[in-house]
C-alpha cells in the first residue's frame, strides 16, 4: 500500500537523530568549518547512537537492521545539523557497509571493530580528479600480478579521517569495475589533504596510487565481486537525503530570519516576494525527499535503483543549491556574512553535483 509515513521505530530514530543534530552538531558547525577540524567528542557520541552499527549484520555484533529508507532518514537529519560532520559520522559505513554486503568471510571478520566501543572511521575512494569522472568506468586500473593485484590511478574526495586503517578503492579490474581493500599505509599510496569550497571540517584526501600491490584477498567479494550499480545507487540515495537535509536547514534559517527581520514596519516574510520564495523552497524540498525515499525503497526491495537514485540525486542536488542560494538571498547582506549559516549551506550544496558515494545507506 502506498504510504509516506515512517514506522514508529523509524520515527524514534528520526526524533533521536534530530535532537542530536540540533544539540550536538549544529552548535559546532561553524567553528569546525572555520577550523577545518572535526569535533572528536561528537563523533564518539554519534558512535554511541549506533547509527552505522545498527545496519551491520548481527553475526559481527551489529543490529542487523540495514534499511536504505532508515539510512536516508538518518542522513537527512545529520546533514541538517552540518554536512561535513554528518559525512564524518557516517564514514564508518563507507568501509563497513560494502564489506558487510559483498565481503567474503575473511573480509567480514574485520567488521567487528566498527561495532566496538570507539568510533572507527571508514573510507571509500570512487571519484577521480577529472571532469569526466565516471563511477562505472574508473580510470584507475587494477592489473593482475601473480597472486595479487597492482593498482594505478588517482582518486579524490576520499574521506580520510584520523585513525582509519584502510580505504576501499574502486578500480577497473580488467574490464569490470571492482572494489579493493587497500591499507592506508600501502607502499605506493600517497594521500594529500584536499582543500574544498565547502565541507571544510571533513578531512578528505586526493590519492595517488602508483603500483600499489594488494593480495588476491583484497578484492572485495572475491571472484563474485561487488554490484557497483547498487553501491553507486546507495551512495546517491545517501547524498540525495543529505542534500534534502542541507536544503531544509537553509530553508529554516531563511524562514526564521524573514519572520524576524522588519522592513517598512512589518516582517519581510509578509511580503509575497519573500513568502512565495519560501513556499517554493518548502514544496521543492518535500518533492526531493519523496524521490529519495522512493529510490531507497527500491534498494530495500533489492531492485536495481539506478534510475530512481539518479533522479533523486539530481533533483535533490538542484533543490539544495537553489534553496541555499535562495536562503542567502532572503538574508540579503547578512546571507553573505559568515556569521550566518546560509553561505555555508550554499558552498556545501554545490558539492552534491560533484560528490559520489561519500556516504552510503
Amino acid at each position, binding site marked *: 500500500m*502506498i504510504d*509516506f509515513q515512517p514506522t514508529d521505530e523509524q520515527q524514534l530514530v528520526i526524533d533521536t537523530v534530530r535532537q542530536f543534530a540540533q544539540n550536538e552538531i549544529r552548535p559546532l558547525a561553524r567553528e569546525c568549518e572555520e577550523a577545518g577540524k572535526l569535533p572528536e567528542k561528537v563523533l564518539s557520541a554519534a558512535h554511541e547512537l549506533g547509527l552505522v552499527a545498527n545496519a551491520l549484520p548481527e553475526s559481527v555484533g551489529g543490529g542487523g537492521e540495514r534499511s536504505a529508507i532508515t539510512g536516508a532518514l538518518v542522513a537527512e537529519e545529520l546533514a541538517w545539523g552540518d554536512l561535513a560532520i554528518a559525512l564524518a559520522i557516517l564514514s564508518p559505513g563507507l568501509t563497513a557497509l560494502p564489506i558487510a554486503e559483498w565481503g567474503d568471510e575473511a573480509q567480514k571478520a574485520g567488521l567487528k571493530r566498527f561495532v566496538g566501543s570507539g568510533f572507527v572511521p571508514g573510507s571509500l575512494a570512487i571519484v577521480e580528479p577529472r571532469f569526466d569522472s565516471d563511477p562505472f568506468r574508473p580510470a584507475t586500473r587494477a592489473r593482475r600480478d601473480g597472486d595479487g593485484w597492482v593498482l594505478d590511478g588517482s582518486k579524490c574526495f576520499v574521506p580520510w579521517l584520523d585513525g582509519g586503517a584502510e580505504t576501499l578503492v574502486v578500480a577497473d579490474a580488467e574490464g569490470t569495475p571492482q572494489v579493493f581493500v587497500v591499507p592506508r599505509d600501502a607502499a605506493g599510496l600517497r594521500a594529500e589533504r584536499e582543500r574544498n569550497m565547502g565541507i571544510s571540517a571533513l578531512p578528505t584526501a586526493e590519492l595517488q596510487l602508483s603500483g600499489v600491490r594488494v593480495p588476491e584477498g583484497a578484492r572485495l567479494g572475491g571472484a563474485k565481486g561487488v554490484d557497483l550499480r547498487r553501491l553507486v545507487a546507495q551512495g546517491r540515495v545517501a547524498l540525495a537525503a543529505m542534500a534534502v537535509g542541507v536544503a531544509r536547514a537553509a530553508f529554516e534559517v531563511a524562514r526564521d530570519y524573514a519572520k524576524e527581520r522588519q522592513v517598512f514596519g512589518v516582517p519581510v516574510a509578509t511580503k509575497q516576494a519573500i513568502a512565495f520564495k*519560501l513556499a517554493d523552497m518548502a514544496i521543492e524540498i518535500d518533492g526531493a525527499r519523496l524521490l529519495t525515499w522512493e529510490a531507497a525503497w527500491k534498494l530495500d526491495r533489492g531492485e536495481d535503483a539506478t534510475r530512481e537514485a539518479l533522479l533523486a540525486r539530481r533533483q535533490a542536488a538542484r533543490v539544495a543549491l537553489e534553496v541555499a542560494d535562495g536562503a542567502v538571498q532572503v538574508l540579503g547582506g547578512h546571507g553573505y556574512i559568515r556569521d550566518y549559516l546560509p553561505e555555508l549551506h550554499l558552498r556545501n550544496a554545490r558539492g552534491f553535483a560533484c560528490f559520489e558515494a561519500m556516504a552510503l545507506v
Partner: protein
Amino acid sequence: MPISFDPNPATIAGREDMHEIALNVMRPISRKYDDLEHEMPWEYVNTMWDRTLGKTGKADAGPGDGMVTVCVQTEELCWGDAGLYLRTPSPLLGGSAVAAAGTPAQRERFLAPFRQGRPKWGAMAITEPQAGSDAAAIQTTAVFDEKTNEWVLNGTKIFCTAGQGALDYEGGIVVVWATVDKSAGRAGIKSFVVPAGTPGIKVVGLEKKLGIRASDTATLVLENCRVPADNLLGKAEVKKQDPAQAGDKGFKGAMATFDASRPIVAAMAVGVGRAALDFVKEELERQGIVIRYDAPPREQTAIERDVIDMEAELQAARLLTWRAAKMLDRGQRNNLEASMAKAKAGLAVTKITQKAVELLGPLGYSKKLLVEKWMRDAKINDIYEGTQQINQLIVARRILDYSSSVLR
C-alpha cells in the same frame, strides 16, 4: 504502514481499467473533440457511464487507499485526454462539495442519482467576473424566503466546468457559491445545490479556450433561482468573526472541497505531463535514442538531460500528489500538502509539455500529433482550482504560520 510506493492490488486494477479506456476509447477521439470544441463526446461518456455505473472509485479501492486510487485513475484518464476526462459523467467537483460539506441525507439525495439511469454530471460554480480565488468577493446573492422556505439565488457565474452537462441532463447538480450577507465577507459565503431543471438558472455561453476544448466551460446566469432550504450545504447562520479563527463551518466546509479536489487536479496534471513525456521517450526510441541513467554527466546528451529532468519533475509532482491524497485517506488534515501538490504539478507539467514540443520540433508543433494539444491542455492545471500563485500563498501562510490578514 511503513513508507511504501507499492500500490494496492485494487489500485493497480483500477489503473489498468482506466488505462484501457484511455488508450482505446479516449486517444482515438482526442483530436476530434479538440477540434469540435464543446460537442458532447458520447463515445467516451457512454463507455464511462456503463463501466462505472453503480460504483465509485472509492468503493472499489479497498480500505485506506481510496483517494490514492482516485488520483491514480485520474492520472490514467488524463494521460488519455484531459478534455474528455472533464466530460466524465460523474458528480465531479459538485460531488466533492456535497461530500465535503453535506449531511449524510444530502449526500444520499444528491449523489444517489449518479448511480442509476442515464449519464449525468455535477459542477461547481464559484468564479464570477470579479471574483476568482478571492471567493469572499462573490456578488451572487442568496436570500431566504421564509414564506416558501426557499433560498433565492441571483447572479452570474463564469468558468463553470461541466456546467452545461450538469444543467442539460436530468439528475445533474451545480453547487453554487453565494453570499447570504455581503457585509460578513467570507463568513457570508455559503454553497447551494441547484439541481438540473430548476427554473431561473441557465447557460448563457461556453468559453473558447486554449486547451481542454472538449470540456464545457459554462457561463451561468441565476435569476430568482429558487432552491429548497435543505439545498444549503452547511449551516445558514453567519459568524461575523474572522473565519480563520472562528472555525466557520460554512466557508471552511466549502474550502475543504479544495483539500480533496486539489490532489485530483494535480493528478490530472501529472496525467497530461506523462502523456507528453511517454511520447517523447517513445519517439526517441524509434530514432534509436535510449535514455541512459548511468552515463556520466559529460557524456549525457542535452536531450538525455532534458528527459531525465522532466522525469524527476513529473515524479516529484506525482509523489506530492499521492502524499496529499494519502493524508485524506488517513483522515489527516492535508490543506498544506494539497496546495503543495497542486502548485508543483501545475507548474511542472506546464514546463514538461512545453519542453516536449521543443524537443520534438516540427513533430511537436504539428496538429498531426497530439503533443501540441497536451501542451495546451496542461496549462489549465496551473490555473484552475487555485492558480499557482494562490497555492503558493496558501503554502506560505502555513509554513510561516501567518493568517490571511497578515499575509495577504
